[in-house]
């Protein structure tokens, strides 16, 4: 029995680590750039499918894909913000109008990215096996790939947190999150910082996609599912807060594994019930202001 409990808890934490990484990018994009990026999951999907393609066609190690997908997604995100969202920001009369307009534009982006991927790779479910070695841990068994992705998620999340709290650029990002006009007056190049945030969010999504593909099958229409998980975690943990994303991710992962243990069909239902209750009771999240 205790072994069963430990297994459920560890499964939840392992899931939670991935969920957190999935959410960190969106948290930044919505928390700072005020873009509820519905196409967030598509960047995850692109990361996952690219990794699969590189691994099966050229034998590229998924760990190496991290170094490829992250920067490529960053550039893509940066350019998208520079061309699309910057113009939208300039033409929107108020922040509220920008929020709804940017959400609609992100919907468009979602359709575009998803269908480009479907044109390239088709709708088939793709998977490869990487490091599927059982590891004994506290009397339970886990795949080495699951543990590796968990560790990487933690390291990347921590690195990102340190980047935001210690570097000058990180400081500019945090200033822009609190008060964009004032940050601009203090000499922060707002357009650059916002594009940087969107790009970093996309990079985190791409990296999360690589990690996800190491453990789970990937396919062209998986994006929306992860977008939803990211939105739930962000609402759970509070906007723009990286520790919040990790707390939210772990909570969601644990809830998922506990509910799955009792009734597998209800895991997703539980996610949405929590999401809806949270929106009604405390829309600012656990660590939100």
């Amino acid at each position, binding site marked *: 029995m205790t072994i069963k409990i430990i297994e459920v808890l560890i499964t939840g934490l392992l899931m939670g680590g991935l969920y957190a990484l999935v959410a960190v990018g969106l948290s930044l994009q919505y928390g700072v750039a005020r873009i*509820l990026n519905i196409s967030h999951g598509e960047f995850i999907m692109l990361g996952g499918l690219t990794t699969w393609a590189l691994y099966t066609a050229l034998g590229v190690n998924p760990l190496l894909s991290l170094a490829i997908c992250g920067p490529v997604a960053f550039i893509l995100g940066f350019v998208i913000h520079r061309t*699309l969202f910057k*113009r*939208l920001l300039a*033409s929107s009369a108020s922040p*509220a109008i920008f*929020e*709804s*307009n940017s*959400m*609609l*534009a992100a*919907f*468009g*982006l*979602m*359709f*575009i990215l*998803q*269908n*480009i991927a*479907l*044109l390239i790779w088709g709708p088939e479910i793709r998977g490869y096996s990487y490091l599927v070695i059982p590891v004994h841990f506290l009397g339970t068994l886990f795949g080495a790939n699951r543990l590796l992705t968990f560790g990487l998620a933690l390291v990347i999340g921590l690195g990102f947190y340190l980047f935001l709290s210690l570097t000058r650029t990180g400081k500019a990002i945090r200033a822009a999150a609190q008060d964009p006009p004032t940050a601009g007056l203090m000499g922060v190049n707002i357009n650059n910082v916002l594009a940087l945030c969107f790009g970093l969010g996309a990079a985190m999504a791409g990296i999360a996609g690589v990690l996800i593909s190491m453990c789970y099958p990937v396919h062209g229409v998986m994006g*929306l599912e992860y977008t*939803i998980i990211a*939105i*739930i975690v962000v*609402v759970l943990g509070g906007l723009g807060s990286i520790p919040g994303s990790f707390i939210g991710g772990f909570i969601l992962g644990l809830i998922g594994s506990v509910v799955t243990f009792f*009734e597998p*069909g*209800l895991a*997703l*239902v539980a996610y*949405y*019930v929590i*999401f*809806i209750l949270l*929106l*009604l009771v405390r*829309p600012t999240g656990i660590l939100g202001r």
Partner: protein
Amino acid sequence: MNTRKNLRQIWLLGLTLIFLALLATLPLYAPTYTIILMTSILMYIVLTMSWALFSAPTGYISLAPAAFFGIGIYTSAILGTRLPLPAVILAGSLISFCLALLIGALTLRLRGIYFAMFTFGLVELIKNFWLWYEIQFTGTRGRFVIFVDNTTIYYVMLIILALLLLVTYLIRRSRFGLALRGIGECEEAAAHIGVHVNALKTATFAISAIFMGAAGAIMATRWTYVDPYVAFNPLYSFMSVLMAIFGGIGQPYGPILGAAIFAYLEEILITRFPYYYMLIFGIVLIVTVLYLPEGLIGLVANIRKRVAGGQDALA
């Protein structure tokens, strides 16, 4: 000025009636394929217009159409064999209406983007819960729906559209509609001058759900087999929003235009080039948000203004 506006309204009304009458005679001479195509177009027009009924004046982006549409579909699947068709459709709209009242009352406090997130979460919640329920208690994932011939489906959809047009017209020209637009402009100010903001929002939200439920109830009979993934497909929500934005939500005929164009495009493209259809959809959406904030009708109005300006210059 006022008489000119009245004249224009009478003209539009007459045109709408003639158009509806023409549509009503369609099954007399058109081939079956045209009827099926027109039914799909009418379905999208109904979904898009009923979305715009609530969201256009108030500015709240609802992603709930798929929920009400799906509820209509399942009402039809469950009650279809036990009740006559009109009763089934009525039941579909009534259940959607009640659910919308409940949701409206719950989400009154949510503003802007949170309302969109909530309504989206709701669709997914209903879908996943229903999937679990079906597998757990009925043992199968999907259900068969009673067969109804294509002409009947077409006429029912046309009647729903006619009623929706009537309701949209009545709301727009009443104090009710004025108050709704007031909420869209500034909710606090509207509340301050005595508009029952919450009651009004909930009522309109629920009225719009009636038509989505009815459309779902009749469309289910065409698909003959439904499961929760088909019925509660979030794409119906996205499509309603996007078609309306593309057409332009400033005028009631904007959503009609947007829905008609994209429903037709879908029909000719989706079987052969499904990915290209969705790709085009995405590109058009981004272009619309960037360059056509008032949608297609805004563009038309601009061109007309420019042409009229040119004439003035000549005279």
